């Protein structure tokens, strides 16, 4: 059961990620992002982190991507197409990032070597998380900083849209 769920959600996330990266239309990419986030939320669920999963859906799927879609749909001409050529310049940076990520994965795999996946009974994590949030020595400050996230997303979406308009000749 767990294997099946894990594979199912991982497949959703991966497929969504591929579509997001390679689809020409930016609106499609945004919709694919929804699939990625949903798949990841499902993975959280299968691994027993239910509060995290639900929060992921509520905030990212229900909030962030909608904001993003909003900005992208409203401010781009014909919900435009990405000019991939412009991003080739960034290839070295992206390559370095990718290599770094691979290293991280290697580490993760090394840690989980020999462990067996088991179906975890979802434990009520909300109490502990709540305690950590309000504890002055806990995560109060990072939590507050994170709440700027929505603003960052909106600014980011506007920036993407703006680059689109500069890319089109008659904008």
């Amino acid at each position, binding site marked *: 059961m767990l294997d099946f769920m894990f594979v199912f959600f991982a497949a959703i996330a991966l497929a969504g990620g591929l579509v997001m990266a390679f689809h020409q239309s930016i609106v499609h990419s945004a919709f694919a992002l929804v699939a990625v986030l949903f798949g990841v939320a499902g993975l959280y669920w299968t691994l027993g982190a239910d509060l995290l999963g639900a929060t992921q859906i509520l905030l990212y799927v229900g909030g962030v991507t909608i904001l993003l879609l909003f900005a992208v749909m*409203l*401010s*781009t*001409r014909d919900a435009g197409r990405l000019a991939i050529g412009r991003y080739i310049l960034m290839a070295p940076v992206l390559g370095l990032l990718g290599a770094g990520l691979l290293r991280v994965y290697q580490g993760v795999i090394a840690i989980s070597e020999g462990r067996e996946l088991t179906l975890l009974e979802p434990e009520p994590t909300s109490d502990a998380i709540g305690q950590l949030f309000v504890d002055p020595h806990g995560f109060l400050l990072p939590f507050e900083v994170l709440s700027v996230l929505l603003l960052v997303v909106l600014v980011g979406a*506007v920036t993407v*849209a*703006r680059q689109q*308009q500069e890319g089109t000749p008659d904008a």
Partner: protein
Amino acid sequence: MEALEMFTSDRNADVYTEELKLNLGPQHPSTHGVLRVELAMDGEIITDSWCDIGYLHRCAEKIGENVTYLQFTPYTDRMDYLASMNNNLAWSLTVEKLLDVEAPERAQWIRALVAELNRIASHLIAFGTYGIDLGANTPFFYAFRERESIMQLLEKISGARMLYNFIRPGGVANDIDDAWMDEVSAFCDDFEKRWVEYNTLLTDNFVFIQRTANIGILTKELALSNGCTGPVLRASGVKWDLRRDVPYLEPYDECEFDIPVGEGTHGTLGDCWDRYWVRMREMIESVRIIRQCIEKIPPGAHMEKSMVKMYKTPLKPPPGEAYVRCENPRGELGFYVVSEGGNSPIRCRTRAPSFCNLSVLDKLLPGTMLGDAVATIGSLDIVLGEVDR
């Protein structure tokens, strides 16, 4: 217009909302027929609008030049199909003016009575559909219940439910009897109670006031310059009603009634709520006129004798022209008829009140939101059969 500058995005800015052209109509639930309005939208805000009419053009003026004077009466029914009696009345008065005859006294009282009944029916439609425009579906059914009674009353005397062809040059088609008038007074009693119900349901509703007050403000100057008439003009604060100021029927001279004008109850004079409220109060004034008509109606002939003779051959008015305007539910309906002595006029021009009232729409819409556009179109209360003729 201040709102327009405040909220719409700057076209020269780096990032702006794309301008969207929205076709409101001709097939749209709230354009009251086949009106088409092209809207330039900035998000939800209208930046510009262009009215497009003519989808219901049926060449009424050309038809008028090809049929006899009497034959044209039913065609006037089809112009403002919600107020056929009033259209018949205007046409009959025009032809009578060309022929230099006057309808008998009793006919004039009957005319006023049925015209006021039809005015109530027409305003009921305006009230009901306005509710639908704003998302309140229920008042529509209440309004139709009362309109049904009026249609049944008028059916009893004319034989038709909507397009009556009842008022004709020289008088009216049939006489009315006391039993019918008793039914009319029973209806009046009933209607006054229902009217209070409408107000509790829609007029005083907080959401309704929010949606209509201070929206689509038509100033007095703009209304006069654009030739707006009827409730639309009166809501802008001009106390002008042909029934009182240029009485074209005897009863209007003798009956007591008030002319409701807009008072800017909820903020601005001439907003959608004022137009709505003027119509609502006009219904009650019409009831007053109907009551007095029933009371004072004199005995006599319902049709001018000389006209009955003339009906046997086509009417041939002497060369000349006549312009008569009447206070219709939607404003002043005028017929300008030019005769050169033939069987039919050489020009049969209609001044349709909805046509003039609608021409102001392009000036009201910019700066409002899409929902307000619907509220504004509804408050002008147009009938496309009359706009396009």
